[in-house]
């Protein structure tokens, strides 16, 4: 039995409603026509606003929606996966049919669109909507791995171990070396594990390995590893740590230092760097964990893993959005100092310096939960 994705309505609830005086209705289809070629988070926000307006006006009249996107350049993997989430919400939760016509320009970071279930929505296949729902949740086909882990599966203590094996087996079909495979599977599993453990929400994993690409300026053949991990939850990335450091009695020395750091950072909060950013950065610190027990291990060193993957890469584009804030993972700022703190700044100093504000930004789209976009371009080894 396929269970509905938990909390996917939050994405719709958090991103507003468009004021539309008159909907375009052709052939009994409500049409959303995109009039620009860049398909980015602003477009996703606009689409969500449109969907909310449709659902308000036509709640009981289930006219299908036609998303006519035309020729587009997709910003990155997370962008089209969010659009998949919106379509899945419409089809599965709202019981509304969806048609998508799109012609996406090929790019190494977004090649996964060619195996996206969105393409089904541009066909006349009889069972396309049930197939979409199925493929949205689970697919291992050619160069695409998709898995939505439901919270109800979390009773299996070996769940993450099994998924780790699945991803490793999937990657073995390509030219990914063991060293890279190990790092990729571990990043995915640790991120998914964090989502499951701290948020009580489903977790979507999407991974694709691209065809080989040639570069004009460099010799050799390159391939892309594109990863998206999303969970929808009222608990944002820094939530558990923000809650934990309020309880002084359970804090170990390291968490007490975090509390001191908060006092210093607070003095420097501004429109570019605020409390949410502090807790987001705090959640990537070594041996800092949101678990409520006083632990002496924990905190998975995720940035170390991401930094390692970036080190293997020729190019990368990695960030996380949580709420309406984003953190970018840039390799030069991802090293730990001798005490195991990561500053996200030139001085590698978390305790007394704020992060580089260029690594932080507001996000046009509000993600109720956490969404990672991890794109790596790697050189194929002969």
């Amino acid at each position, binding site marked *: 039995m396929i269970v509905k994705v938990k909390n996917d309505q939050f994405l719709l609830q958090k991103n507003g409603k468009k004021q539309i005086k008159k909907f375009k209705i052709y052939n009994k289809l409500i049409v959303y026509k995109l009039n620009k070629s860049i398909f980015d988070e602003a477009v996703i926000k606009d689409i969500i606003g449109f969907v909310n307006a449709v659902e308000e006006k036509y709640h009981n009249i289930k006219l299908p929606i036609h998303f006519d996107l035309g020729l587009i350049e997709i910003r990155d993997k997370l962008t089209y996966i969010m659009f998949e989430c919106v379509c899945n919400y419409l089809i599965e939760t709202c019981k509304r049919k969806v048609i998508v016509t799109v012609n996406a320009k090929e790019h190494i970071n977004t090649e996964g669109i060619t195996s996206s279930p969105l393409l089904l929505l541009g066909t006349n296949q009889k069972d396309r909507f049930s197939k979409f729902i199925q493929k949205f949740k689970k697919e291992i086909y050619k160069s695409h791995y998709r898995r939505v882990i439901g919270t109800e599966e979390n009773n299996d*203590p*070996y*769940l*993450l*171990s*099994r*998924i*780790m*094996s699945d991803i*490793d087996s999937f990657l073995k079909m390509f030219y990914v070396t063991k060293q890279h495979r*190990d790092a990729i*599977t*571990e990043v995915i*599993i*640790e991120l998914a*594990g964090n989502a499951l*453990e701290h948020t009580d929400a489903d977790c979507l994993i999407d991974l694709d390995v691209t065809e080989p690409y040639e570069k004009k300026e460099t010799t050799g053949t390159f391939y892309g590893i594109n990863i998206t991990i999303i969970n929808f939850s009222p608990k944002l990335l820094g939530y558990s740590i923000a809650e934990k450091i309020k309880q002084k009695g359970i804090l170990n020395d390291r968490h007490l230092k975090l509390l001191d750091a908060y006092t210093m950072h607070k003095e420097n909060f501004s429109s570019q760097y605020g409390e949410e950013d502090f807790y987001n950065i705090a959640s990537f610190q070594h041996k800092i964990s949101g*678990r409520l027990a006083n*632990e*002496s*291990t*924990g*905190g*998975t*060193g995720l940035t170390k893993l991401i930094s390692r993957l970036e080190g293997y890469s020729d190019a990368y584009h990695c960030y996380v959005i949580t709420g309406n804030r984003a953190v970018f993972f840039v390799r030069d700022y991802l090293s730990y100092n001798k005490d*195991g703190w990561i500053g996200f700044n030139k001085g590698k100093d978390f305790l007394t310096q704020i992060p580089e504000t260029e690594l932080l930004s507001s996000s046009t789209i509000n993600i109720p939960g956490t969404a990672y976009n991890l794109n790596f371009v790697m050189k194929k080894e002969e």
Partner: protein
Amino acid sequence: MHNNFELIFDKMVTKLAGNPLGKQVFKEQLLGKVNYENNFTIIIPERIDTIASSFIQGFFEDIVKNIGISGIEDKVSIISSIPDIKNLIIRNLL
């Protein structure tokens, strides 16, 4: 009290991941049976070829609390098909 702990896992599993799983395995198979005064050995089935840091941190949480990382270096032997397993574990606990 034992000195050797041959860990038992689901027979289909070749990789270990997740802090809760690490804690559960420790609780079910070592807690109350391990004597921290003595040296002890942990034997990991040969088919296990990867252990994620989250599992290591969950499994060794109680051990680190009792004997510290230096205690693990001095008193704990680990038998596994994973090359350089002890270093991997220490690196993930530091």
